[in-house]
């Protein structure tokens, strides 16, 4: 498996694991949707996701040094560009969809509070990142 595909797997699994746990705790009521405790958990989640990604990428790079050191070629750059395009549309739909649901349904309380809107935006960013990683993995799997 090429290093950059491994890198996408690492990003996908870390984001799903760390932020899945964070949003899961909010959705199941173990964390309140707003407040200092939730914000502290958010900071811890961001730190955990960053540290995990760096640590796992360093390990992956050590296992395939020449692959990791090689500059991206044109196909790899194209894969990343197309994946970023997919992520852009996911971000757009998720952010606007989330805002619409928050503003026009009682799902997040009516009217929704600012921290709740922040959470909706964060969820859209995480979804876009997950979509980007998935798009990279699919393209590498297809060999295209």
């Amino acid at each position, binding site marked *: 498996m*090429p290093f950059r595909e491994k890198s996408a797997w690492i990003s996908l699994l870390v984001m799903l694991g760390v932020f899945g746990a964070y949003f899961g705790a909010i959705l199941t009521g173990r964390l309140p949707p707003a407040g200092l405790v939730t914000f502290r958990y958010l900071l811890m989640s961001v730190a955990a996701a960053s540290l995990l990604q760096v640590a796992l990428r360093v390990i992956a790079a050590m296992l395939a040094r020449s*692959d990791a050191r*090689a500059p991206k*070629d*044109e*196909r*790899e750059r194209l894969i990343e560009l197309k994946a970023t395009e997919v992520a852009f549309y996911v971000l757009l739909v998720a952010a606007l969809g989330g805002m619409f649901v928050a503003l026009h349904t009682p799902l997040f309380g009516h009217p929704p509070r600012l921290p709740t809107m922040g959470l909706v935006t964060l969820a859209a960013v995480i979804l876009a990142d997950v979509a980007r990683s998935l798009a990279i993995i699919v393209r*590498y799997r*297809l*060999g*295209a």
Partner: protein
Amino acid sequence: MARLPIANRIRRLRFEAGEMTQQELARRIGMTRQTVAAIEQGKYAPSLEAAFRIARVFGQPLEAVFQWVDED
């Protein structure tokens, strides 16, 4: 994923160049082995620059390496 209308003779040319490996060809054109494999299998159409680089490695004109395949 749709197959590209471009065929190539890279596998044959590697064989004729003393079983040159995909890794060696990749190194000589500044690409990854996976990209060479994708080009060889017709899953990825290289840029014009990369196509010329490949042709130069084998000392062949471009059309001796890549051919347009009519889709009908």
